[in-house]
């Protein structure tokens, strides 16, 4: 990664290529109820990321062998549309999608009251329409809103954001250009009210101090996004969330 060291992504005043300071997230828009035929849905535009989540269910889980006697199963699929990236993506599941689907399901299962719906299934479909950097975070955030829009009872809302490191400096919410030169990425899924973590990944290289800084940026970033989620749900449901 040292080979990229001469590309300057942050100026002497700490201003990033898109004008943000180290702790700023990209502009975020959230809308609920965007898929008419779904039981719940949401759209998250996070920088250039464009992600749609749709929820179907609860419905009977079949085939029977996937049923859980004491709770609903969350059947989560994260997928990147073929036209979502500069180089076209061939349709079909791949290992990256499968892993992201798995950790996303595990994060959401923690907050959804699945025990209210034994032997049933709740389908959560996350489609990345345009990808920048941080699609898995935008997907988890969109899925939270879509679940709420579907009226699925949850103990908390999950918001996900990733801090990273670039040019040796820790910053919040890398965009695509920064990500290309980035040295680390720490995505976290945080419960809006409790502050507990339900999703955590990281790769790259962070010293203990850098790690703490990235952690803190993520923790601070979620509050404004939570406000947007609530507004989107109120708007979609005529004033009540």
């Amino acid at each position, binding site marked *: 990664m040292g080979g990229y060291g001469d590309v300057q992504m942050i100026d002497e005043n700490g201003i990033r290529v898109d004008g943000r300071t180290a702790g700023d997230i990209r502009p975020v828009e959230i809308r609920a109820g965007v898929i008419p035929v779904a039981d719940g849905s949401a759209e998250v535009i996070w920088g250039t990321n*464009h992600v749609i989540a749709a929820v179907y269910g609860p*419905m009977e889980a079949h085939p029977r062998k996937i049923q859980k006697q004491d709770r609903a199963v969350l059947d989560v699929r994260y997928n990147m549309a073929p*036209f979502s990236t500069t180089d076209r993506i061939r349709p079909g599941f791949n290992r990256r999608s499968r892993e992201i689907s798995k950790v996303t399901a595990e994060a959401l299962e923690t907050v959804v009251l699945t025990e209210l719906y034994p032997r049933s299934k709740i389908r959560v479909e996350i489609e990345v329409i345009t990808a920048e950097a941080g699609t898995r975070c935008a997907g988890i955030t969109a899925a939270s809103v879509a679940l709420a829009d579907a009226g699925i009872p949850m103990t908390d809302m999950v918001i996900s954001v990733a801090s990273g490191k670039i040019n040796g400096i820790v910053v919040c919410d890398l965009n695509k250009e920064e990500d290309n030169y980035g040295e680390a990425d720490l995505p976290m899924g945080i419960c809006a009210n409790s502050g507990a973590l339900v999703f955590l990944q990281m790769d790259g290289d962070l010293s203990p101090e850098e790690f703490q800084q990235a952690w803190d940026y993520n923790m601070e970033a979620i509050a404004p996004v939570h406000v947007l989620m609530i507004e989107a749900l109120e708007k979609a449901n005529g004033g009540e969330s």
Partner: protein
Amino acid sequence: MAAPPVPELLRAHLAELAKNDERLDGRGRFEGRAVEIETGVLARAEGSARVVMGDTIVLAGVKFQIMTPYPDRPTSGGFMTSAEVRPVSGVHWEAGPPSPEAIELGRVVDRGIRESGCLDMEDLCILPGEKAWQVILDVFALSDDGNLFDAFATAAMAALRTAVIPGERFDVGEDRPLPVSKKPMMCSYHRVGGRYVYDAVRREEIGGAERIHITLGDDDHVHSLQKGLKGAFTADEFAEIMDHARQRCAELRNMIE
């Protein structure tokens, strides 16, 4: 008025409506839903469109790749259509490899475009025998409330006609618009309550029988036909819908650039 949930009752209900020449949502037999077409909606595609027809929403994106021409056609580029109907678009669509329905959908949309000759494959040649553009059309359903065929075909044409060949990104000359010489358009008909209707919604599809897809190009030339599902039709029935398709395809043609 809510349609009954059980297919048998739905079928009876649709037959009842048909007696008075009515439809579930109050439209006339050959009346289409309002069509919204927006282009340039996908930041990473070289051409794109979103089409909304009632509660049916689809996207189309055009991407380009550089290919080696086939030995027997050294000056020809390529064209490929991939239709995806993922489970996001309805509770009735399941995950997994493409269903026979999705395969048919993609192939019928592809044939309408390919067979009209609207894409000049020779124009896609970069260096004879060495390099040519491959045009990849991805159509993608977001919300399926019936008649994905027409939504896909319309989005496809709108995306293709606004696509730009990314010569600069691939370092093979300047960017230039993809030349698309014609506007083949598709109209689809379902047998519902015994007679054909145009632009069926999902519940009409569920309670209906066979369907016919007609793709017409400039001067009413026929480029593609497909009958789907169990059912038989007469020459007279076909003549009637072909008449309507000529008129409606012309209208649709005026809606895209």
